[in-house]
């Protein structure tokens, strides 16, 4: 009989172990799977006791589901890929930095620079996000259900930033490509971007990303901003 997929849940209590232990466990599981020729398709990590530790979940790849109870510090879930992650708490600066693929959902607020340089996947923040959300983002989709601070979409290269609430100063400064969708108002909008007519592909895009982000919304009332130099 062929090897059957193995399902396993690993629990980590950050009051007793370090963020490093999570990554070490993943490496150990991969080595074990390789030696046993087992196909592990549903590896799950359950992380509890989070209280502002940095680097939690950084470097995690190929874990089907990660759930976190508590709040996270800086650079958490950096370079994350190939899985779904749910966080019941707030997240610190640079959350989802360099994310490659998968979904990160945060049921709280985010500090500055969420989604910085993220290359793929979807990040959803159900609360508000501070300054410089989606800075230098290179292909990922970032959804902020609440409002964002100043310089949202700073140097955005590609991908989309969807803002359900309001934005601070200089929205879209230095943006090269991609799109910013906003439902509320912005304190000021950078001259590097211009408002464009929302077309059907935009509505589809908003609907699809919100669906992935687990937000039930028809995606109406959004305005779209693109780079003033972008020919599209």
């Amino acid at each position, binding site marked *: 009989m062929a090897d059957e997929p193995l399902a396993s849940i690993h629990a980590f209590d950050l009051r007793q172990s370090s963020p490093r232990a999570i990554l070490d466990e993943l490496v150990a599981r991969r080595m074990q799977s390789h030696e046993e020729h087992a196909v592990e398709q549903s590896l799950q990590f359950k992380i509890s006791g989070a209280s502002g530790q940095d*680097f939690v979940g950084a*470097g995690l790849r190929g874990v089907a589901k990660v759930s976190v109870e508590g709040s996270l510090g800086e650079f958490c879930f950096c*370079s994350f890929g190939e899985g779904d992650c749910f966080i019941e708490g707030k997240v610190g600066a*640079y959350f989802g930095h*360099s994310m*490659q693929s998968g979904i990160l959902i945060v049921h709280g607020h985010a500090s500055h*620079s969420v989604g910085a340089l993220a290359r793929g996947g979807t990040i959803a923040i159900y609360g508000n996000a501070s300054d410089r959300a989606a*800075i*230098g983002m290179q292909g990922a989709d970032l959804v902020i259900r609440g409002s964002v601070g100043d310089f949202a979409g700073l140097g955005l290269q590609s991908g989309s930033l969807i803002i359900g609430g309001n934005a601070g100063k200089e929205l879209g400064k230095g943006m090269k490509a991609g799109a910013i969708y906003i439902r509320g108002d912005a304190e000021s909008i950078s001259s590097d971007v211009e408002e464009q007519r929302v077309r059907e592909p935009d509505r589809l895009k908003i609907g699809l990303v919100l669906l992935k982000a687990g937000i039930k919304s028809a995606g109406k009332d959004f305005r779209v901003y693109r780079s003033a130099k972008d020919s599209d």
Partner: protein
Amino acid sequence: MHAGALDRDNVLRLSGQCAVNAFLGQSLFSRLPLDVSWQPKERDAFLQSLSELSIPWVGCSREGDASPDRSVAGDRESLSATRIHPIGIDQDIDVEQFQHVGAIELQLYGRPFQTPCRSERSHWCSNLPVEIFQLEQLTKKIELIRFLAQSSVAVGAAIGPLQVYEDVRFLADCGVDYVCILGTVFHRWDPAGELTLCPPESYFDSALKAARDSGTSVRVRIASDLTSPAEMHRCLREGVHAVCVDAYLAARCQSQKKSENLGSFLGYAAPQPSPSSWIRAELAQLVAELDDWNAFYHRG
């Protein structure tokens, strides 16, 4: 604590430290694989030569690219171990790229996202990563890189040659293992492609003084226009941790071309040395001459 009491974390930390020390033991390096466009075969041959002589090189290894990790059979591990993985100021951190590297080097210069520069030289002005606005954040980013690389690699930073004292001090405080000063760079693989941004004497002493004043173990590496083993050895003796071989090779590249064009009609029929063979021979000679200088100075 006796050796048997070492836990897994300590074993990992100590083995990582050994790997870092092994990398930091090398006194030569090359930036040509990063700075110059190569034909895949030439690049592989060049990297093979560097690898055989354990000379670290800065460059990428990408899927589908003419990467040495995949195209050169047999020596994959040894080739990778000499690789210094560069992270540009606008580049994401891909943890998969951290496998089997000797070091990770932040390239702290240039304009982000291919924004045109006013001049060729201005491209090499020092700059922070796009998402970093305070030095504390850079410190944290360096910590993150160490975390992702499981502490088993050295983390360095390459900077332009201006305001070197201040930059080295700041980077030392941020926790890098070494700082590489880019005084001379290449945009083409011959002497005409050389771009000297500053003569070494203008930053050499400042860099070493900054390293000493920092009170840390930060090391200084220089990429300058050194073309003789004697000059290189002098720099190493005075406290530079490693020197770049690119200017040395570029100077020999020209002499190789001259020797191929002596004008004899028989010269066309004679077998020409392949680039990889003369590069390897030149590098081997350089290593031997540096060893010789070392032996001379340590005899007393």
